[in-house]
Structures are given as C-alpha cells and as structure tokens.
C-alpha cells in the first residue's frame, strides 16, 4: 500500500463507498446514458410554449381519459385473475406447476403484436371462444374499449403474478400456523395475515401491471383496433400524431413520461419484499 493511502481517513469496514470501483463505473455510465438520453431528448424537443394549448385539445384529452380507463381496468382484471393464480403457483403443489408458471409468463416474452393476433384468434368474432359470444349475443370484443382493456390485461397480468408469487413464497408460512393456533380459519388467516404480509409485493405488482398496461401498443392495435374515443389509447395516439402533428405526439409522450415517473417515485424501491 502506498504511503499516501495510509493518510486516508479511516473508513468503517463494510461501509458503502461514495465512488463505485472504476470497473463498475463504465457500464454504470453506459447504462445510465442508455436510459436517460432518450428521455432527455424528449424533454429537449418538447414544444414547451404549446404544451398547455395542446393538452387541452380533444385528441389528447380523449386519448388520456381512455388510456386511464383501460389501464386501470386492465390492472383490475390482472388483480382479480392474477392473485388467485399467484396463490396456486406459490402454495399448491399441483402436477405441472412449472409448466403452468411458464405459460403465465408467456405474454411477457411474446411480442405484443403476436399476443394481439392470438387474442383475435381466440376472442375475435370468429375466434375459438369469441364465435360463441358473437352467436349468442351479437357482441364481439375487437374494436371495443373492453377489447382494449383485455389486450392490455393480457400483457400486464404476468407482471402482477410474478411479483405476488414472489411475495407469497417469501412470506413466512409459520405465521399462518400461529394464526391457526389462535383460532383463525383459512379465510381469516388469508385476510388478516397473508395479505398484509404480501401487501408490498401486491402494490408493486399492481403498479407494474398498470404501467405495462398503460404503455401497451401492439396487442391493443391488433386486437382492439384504433379509433379515437373507443380504442385509441395514448400510445396509439402518439403513433398516429407523429406523422401529422408531431408536437401533439411529443406532448402526449411527455404526459405518459410524467405519469410514469410519479408512479415509480411513489413506489420507491418497494418492488420486492425487503427483509
């Protein structure tokens, strides 16, 4: 060790250093740039003088309202279907469980447009299941807001299942034993012990699912189509506006960016259960 370093002020063993080691710093800067530069570009090119005016246009308002409705609806669907699924995957030892888990993760790795096509073939007017719906009620999901919600739920649900399953797995099962000895039946235990224990994972899962649903493009346009007010969510509106009204496109993008930042910051590291 050099003499100079002897003069360094003493540091606690195990204290996190202020400067990362050089070998890590390079990939860190690259990674940071990769994420930050596109956002910086967005902010740089934003037509700040027009923002307020553009925000008030009907295109933006309609798309935004529709996006919020669809994404929140998709989040709700993901929760209703995803939580029981996560429970089964985490707690019940059914045969083929790993296969089931792989299937639920499929929408995450599938290109969204492929997901959209698959949804069409299953739930479209002529689809596997959709044809019965159409024959019985004359109603078909494509081109409807419900369809957009469904497409978003399809891509978003795996995120919720993943986080909630992780939370359930890491939850201490013995606490449920303790609850049983105190007289709690399975439902009470689930309600008063299990759910509060996985609450952080649950919120993270909901937030992830909502964010994913909000940003969905490919599956939505393929399955639900593109019509202002019914199925033209913000991502679709951005794409369409990019050709004719680029400023509106940028404003919409800024809006989504702001919304996403608010959600992420409010979650503040609570992605997975911290222990």
């Amino acid at each position, binding site marked *: 060790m050099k003499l100079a370093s002897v003069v*360094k002020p003493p540091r606690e063993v195990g204290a996190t250093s202020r*400067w990362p080691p050089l070998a890590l710093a390079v990939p860190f800067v690259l990674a940071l740039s990769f994420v930050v530069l596109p956002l910086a570009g967005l902010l740089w090119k934003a037509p700040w003088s027009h923002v307020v005016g553009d925000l008030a246009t009907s295109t933006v308002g309609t798309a935004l309202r529709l996006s919020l409705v669809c994404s929140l609806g998709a989040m709700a669907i993901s929760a209703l279907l995803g939580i029981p699924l996560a429970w089964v995957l985490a707690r019940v030892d059914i045969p083929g469980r790993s296969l089931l888990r792989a299937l639920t993760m499929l929408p995450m790795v599938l290109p969204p447009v492929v997901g959209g096509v698959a949804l069409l*073939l299953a739930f479209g007017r*002529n689809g596997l299941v959709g044809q019965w719906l159409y024959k019985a009620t004359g109603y078909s999901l494509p081109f409807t807001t419900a369809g957009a919600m469904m497409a978003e739920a399809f891509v978003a649900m795996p995120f919720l299942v993943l986080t909630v399953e992780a939370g359930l797995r890491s939850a201490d099962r013995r606490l449920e034993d303790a609850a049983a000895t105190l007289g709690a039946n399975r439902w009470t235990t689930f309600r008063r012990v299990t759910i509060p224990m996985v609450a952080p994972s649950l919120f993270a899962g909901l937030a992830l699912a909502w964010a994913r649903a909000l940003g969905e*493009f490919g599956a939505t346009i393929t399955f639900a*189509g593109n019509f202002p007010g019914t199925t033209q969510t913000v991502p679709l509106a951005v794409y369409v506006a*990019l050709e*004719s009204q680029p400023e509106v496109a940028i404003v919409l993008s800024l809006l989504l960016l702001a919304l996403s930042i608010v959600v992420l910051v409010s979650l503040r590291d609570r992605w997975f259960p911290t222990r």
Partner: protein
Amino acid sequence: MRSPARLRYCLALVACIAMIATACSGNRVKTSSSSSASATPTSTVTETATPSVTVTATPTPTVSASASATPKPSGSPSATPKPSASPSVSSLSGSANIFAAASLTGAFNKIKADFIALNPKVNLTMNYNGSGSLVTQIQNGAPADVFASADGDNMNKLSGTGKIDFPQNFADNLLEIVVQQNNPKHIATLADLARPDVSVVLGDPASVPAGKYAKQALAAAGVSVTPKSLELNVTAVTQKIALQEADAGIVYVTDVKASVAAGQFVDGVPIPPAQNIVAVYPIGVLKSSPNQAVAQAFVAYVKSPAGQATLASFGFLPPS
C-alpha cells in the same frame, strides 16, 4: 478519493461518453444493407406474400441522435437521373433501401426479383409500410435510397423540403371495397357501407393515403360511415376483413387482387369510376442517398416497359 485517482476516473468517464457520442453519430456506410448504425426502420409486411395470419407489425417510430448529424458520404457517383433506358448493365453493383407504400408490396417484390436478375451484383432491401409512416422514418434519418409513395401529399413532404429532387409518377391505383369471401353481407355499393349491420374498417386518413381517399370518396358519395377502426396501413385493413373481424373495408384494387392471389378469404366489390378516386403514385430518389447509381437504375426500371408491365399485372394503372 485522492486527486490522481479522481483524475483517472473522470478521464475514463469522458472517454466513455465520447465513445457513445461517436457511436450515435450514425456513419452511413456505402455498401450497407439494412443494418446501419443510425435508426433502423422495423420492417412490416414480410417480403413474400404469406396467407391470412400475416402480422402487420406496426413499427415504433425511430429516433436517431440527430438527423443533421448524418455526414454526407464522400465520393458519391453523379446525382443526375439516368434516362429511362432499360438498365441491362450487369456490372452495376451496390445496395439500395427501397421504401415503398404497403400497397406496392406484391408488385415491387416482383420488380425487385426482375431487377436483381438483370443486375446480379445489386442488393436491394425493401421496406413496406404506410406512406405516412415511411415519411416519418425518412424525416428522422432512416437510410432510404428510393421512396415510392401512395399519394402526392406524402411525397411533397419530402420533395418540398428538398430531400427528393425529381419525383415521377409511375402508377395509378383505384379504390375498391374489400369484403369477406363470397360477400356474406351482400355489399354492392358504397352506400351499403353505412348499413347498421355492416362493420367497416378504414385506413387512418391522417397517415394512410388509401384512408384519406376512402374518406374523400365516401364524402363525395354522401355516405356517412363510422368505421370500427382506423388502421395504420392498408394491409392491416385487409387483414381485419380476412380474419372476419370486420365486414368491409376500402383499399386499393391492387390490394384486393394481391390478397385473393395470396389465398386470403376476401373478395372485392368494385367502386364505379364516378365515385372512385384515382390515386397517383410518385417515386423518387433521396438526394442524400449514397447509392445514387443503384437508386436511379431502380427508378428507371420501374418506369421502363418491363416495370410497367409488372405493375399492370398486379392491377395498377399506367401513370396519369
């Protein structure tokens, strides 16, 4: 951290940032195919016409570091367009990226094959999409050498800004109603599209020329239609009909012909000339193209009798 260590540290970071900056400045290589350092347009319709379940992967708009950073290539061959003689010069070599409207898919694929047969040393890469999308891609720096649009407005966006110098009309197209095979809803006229039991899908008027023309045609005919969806390119309209998700759409005559030829379960209902709109297709070479020779040769071929014959075989009309 001590000063020498900190200095080393900061130098390394600066070197990194410099590396990123040079990587982003998008040097266009003369003989590049589709993979260049700057923004790559994601292709849509596959080059070979595949049956019904073709996925029209609508691309996300591309943004490169800055369009103005694209350096002018050095030593490009003469930029004057060659006269329209058949380029049987088989010593022609190089590459070109052809950006063409989706409705040109079938015809241009054949033209590409024929052109390459005549010029074996040439490499062509086709990019088919809605004309509006293509314009956006080009404006954001996509490396197109030739642009063939489905309408004049989109071409004007590029020629008006000086990106294309001499656009030429090379084909005309007419609109047609596309319906499910055997026309189960018995659609015969534009007016039928307004029926409550008919669900209609159109191209987005803002970005798809066919959509814009369809809107004009419907307005001129006094037919009020609320479409179920405004698709982002004309092929997607046909797809929706083929998948039986909608009952009718308005596309080009050439689209219907191509779909039927590909085995899709659609049929066409012609629109009488009085109600129809003639779409004029212009084509032009990008001024910034580093592959002027190949690009000009391609345009020349499209305009040549051989090219025109191919276009006609796909249902296009001669240029007006």
